[in-house]
């Protein structure tokens, strides 16, 4: 990469500016989510808003759509400063957000959804004027290219692409002039994406401004007029989309090399035998993924959201249908359910601790032994639980994990987030799992506990297990993993280890940066 691209920053608002954000600052306790951010949207343009997780895109969108209020800075519509104090006000000003899964109620008809904000018309004061409502909705559907769709259909019967367009029609019904599309293409097939883009361009020609949030950079060049990149809550730059190409855009997203904190992971023990072998894993997103993990290794699996890392965990654990071969310690295992995964020696530390990892009302002991009750039964017939043995074994494991709880009989809900996570990890230690799937294990725990969980991941590996690690925070891969598989488009885009294992190289690979 040699050619540096000069950001073509807009200095003053030009005629035709629809929405302008100036000097936006949003402070959260201990964190500045937006730092003097500037953004403008012109009449009739499609404007990409890009940045990695936590760059501040969502905060900016929330500020513009009235979900949060800014600490300082201004929002202007048509050159007039406005106070977007709540979502209703934003809608009144003509700003609508279409979220990833569409803000539609699946059980209601298209008409009821589209006119939810604006209201169905009335006849004789009380009765709904269904005829008039359907007629209005048909006109709106026409505008988004769904002329043939019956407005009486239930939204749940629509395809992903139709839902997306119905959500746009809903925005149009409330006279939106600024439509913010938050990752609308995630659930769409390529052909549907093209249809969506066609309709976006048509509506843009009518004067509507689109803010388009996505992780898929290819789409940006297909449909967008201008591109704004954010990093760490700040504006990196705004460009005409023909001023950038794919690779230079990735460089802008990634930014200069970050210095890694001093507690970065330095070389683990030498890996042992291959414990887990995955061959030709194919699913919704994955396309023939193969890799192996050795005893003593922490292997990171990184990708953009929805681009494969999540599916690796789910298919290894039998939570979703996938084809391919899974071999554990040389034995081919058929894994179609979590039950089979556990039997094969896999343990999952799930993403959502309270909803998937714990039974909140049960004690630490009962939670810890949940996957290994079999090893505590007295005999094969009555299967009485030997609580004394449970207490001893759980006590040993929790000592090793340095668990802080008032007692092993305390309800697990009373523990802090980090200690709860230790109970989940302890469950698999008691089960003597050979492969640990740590699926964003540090979500919603404090900084200190994060460090502890990194250490635990290492300890699991040092004790001879193979650890598969995913996270939404890329710097964690650099801290914990011996090597990182970066997935792009359902395949391994590259494998990083040692000094190459940096946030920037992971991002570059996951965005599908072709050259280095």
């Amino acid at each position, binding site marked *: 990469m040699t050619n540096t691209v000069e950001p073509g920053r807009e200095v003053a608002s030009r005629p035709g500016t629809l929405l302008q954000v100036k000097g936006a600052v949003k402070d959260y306790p201990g964190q500045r989510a937006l730092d003097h951010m500037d953004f403008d949207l012109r009449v009739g343009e499609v404007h990409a808003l890009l940045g990695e997780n936590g760059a501040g895109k969502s905060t900016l969108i929330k500020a513009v759509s009235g979900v949060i209020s800014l600490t300082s800075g201004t929002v202007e519509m048509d050159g007039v400063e406005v106070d977007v104090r709540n979502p209703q006000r934003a809608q009144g000003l003509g700003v609508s957000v279409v979220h990833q899964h569409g803000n539609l109620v699946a059980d209601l008809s298209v008409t009821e959804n589209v006119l939810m904000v604006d209201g169905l018309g009335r006849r004789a004061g009380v009765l709904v004027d269904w005829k008039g409502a359907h007629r209005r909705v048909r006109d709106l559907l026409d505008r988004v290219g769904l002329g043939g769709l019956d407005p009486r259909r239930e939204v749940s019967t629509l395809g992903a692409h139709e839902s997306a367009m119905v959500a746009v029609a809903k925005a149009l019904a409330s006279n939106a002039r600024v439509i913010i599309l938050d990752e609308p293409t995630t659930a769409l097939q390529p052909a549907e994406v093209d249809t969506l883009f066609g309709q976006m361009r048509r509506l843009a020609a009518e004067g509507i401004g689109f803010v388009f949030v996505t992780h898929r950079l290819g789409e940006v060049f297909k449909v967008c007029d201008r591109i704004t990149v954010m990093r760490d809550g700040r504006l990196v730059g705004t460009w005409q989309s023909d001023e950038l190409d794919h690779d230079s855009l990735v460089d802008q997203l990634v930014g200069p090399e970050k210095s890694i904190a001093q507690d970065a992971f330095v070389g683990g023990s030498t890996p042992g035998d291959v414990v887990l072998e995955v061959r030709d894993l194919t699913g919704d997103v994955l396309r023939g993924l193969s890799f192996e993990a050795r005893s003593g290794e922490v292997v990171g699996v990184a990708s953009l959201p929805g681009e494969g890392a999540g599916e690796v965990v789910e298919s290894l654990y039998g*939570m979703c249908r996938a084809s391919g071969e899974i071999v554990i310690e040389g034995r081919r295992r058929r894994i179609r359910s979590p039950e089979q995964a556990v039997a094969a020696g896999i343990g999952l530390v799930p993403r959502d601790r309270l909803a998937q990892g714990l039974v909140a*009302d049960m004690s630490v002991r009962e939670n810890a032994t949940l*996957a290994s009750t079999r090893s*505590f*039964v007295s005999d094969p017939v009555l299967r*009485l639980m030997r609580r004394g043995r449970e207490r001893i074994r759980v006590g040993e494991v929790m000592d090793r994990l340095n668990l802080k709880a008032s007692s092993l009989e305390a309800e697990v809900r009373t523990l802090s987030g980090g200690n709860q996570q230790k109970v989940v990890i302890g469950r698999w230690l008691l089960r003597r799992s050979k492969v640990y799937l740590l699926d964003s294990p540090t979500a919603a725990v404090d900084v200190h506990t994060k460090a502890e969980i990194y250490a635990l991941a290492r300890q699991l590996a040092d004790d001879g297990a193979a650890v598969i690690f995913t996270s939404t925070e890329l710097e964690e891969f650099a801290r914990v993993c011996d090597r990182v598989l970066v997935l792009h488009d359902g395949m391994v885009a590259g494998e990083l280890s040692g000094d190459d294992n940096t946030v920037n190289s992971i991002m570059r690979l996951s965005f599908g940066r072709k050259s280095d």
Partner: protein
Amino acid sequence: MTSTASVSEPQVAGPRRQTSASDRLIDVASRYGTIVSLVVCVLIFSALRPDVFATTQNFLNILNQVSILGIIALGLTVALVQGLFDLSLASMATLGGFMVTKWLAEGTISSPVLAVVLMLLVALVIGCLNGIVVAYGGVSAFIATLAVGSILTGVVLGISKSATILSGIPDGFLVMGQGKVGPVPAPVVFLAIVAVLLYVFLEQTQVGRHMYAIGGNAETARLSGIAVKRYALIALGISAMCAALGGMIVAANLGVGRPQGVGDTYLLDSFAAAFIGASTLRPGRFHIIGTVIGVLLIGVINNGLSIMGVETFWQYAVRGMILLLAVFGASFLVARRR
């Protein structure tokens, strides 16, 4: 002076809240509230009618009166541990009582023991069918058991042609409802056996542990490698067996096999007892000791009020109020803890 009401702000940030004095009071009140009301009821009735109420004979009476309700409610408790409402237990009880008397009266089966065991197996199968519909058909237990219950009612009416079986029931069977072990009536013995068995089952065995885990968080249980679905069969199977046992004891007690209405009296009371139990000692959790206390509370109130000569409608009203208080206490506490 302005009186500032001390409203404790819900703290969003911290995962743990400080427990205030009022929280602890509610905690204690809801844990021991039902036990205290049971004791208070006994004391009041004993004070008012010491000669009639506070006698060994009357206490055995109370136990005898609640034993059938108790057996049915204990079975229901197992289903409720997993969050499964079993509404088929009323017609299951009717079916149990009628079929056994029919078999024995008509001589299809001559041994009372064999007939009882066979009926329990039939109940187990029907309960498992309930479970299959719920677990593999994805129907909510509430609806599935309502439907199966209706079918069972129809089946009994069809088989019996609405005729009650009045004669030909052997004494060997009647012992089940009318016999005594020492001074203790046979139904009370059955109640005690069922209570001990189910207590051990739920509290001490692997299956019971898994059931509580599934009831607490089915997704966690599934991701821990537990084959979640089959436990609905076990739970509803046990619930059906207990209901059938209860129905058979009713038939043995009265000496007749009625084809309708036997179980209906127990349906709502068994839910009441289980829910009162769920607010006792371990709020929000269904358990055997709680249900036993709930059953006793209902029994003492009914018996005491009858002895006092209070009219029936008061018994219903008082029972309802106690249920409301108990459930309110438990749900209030559960809400507070979130």
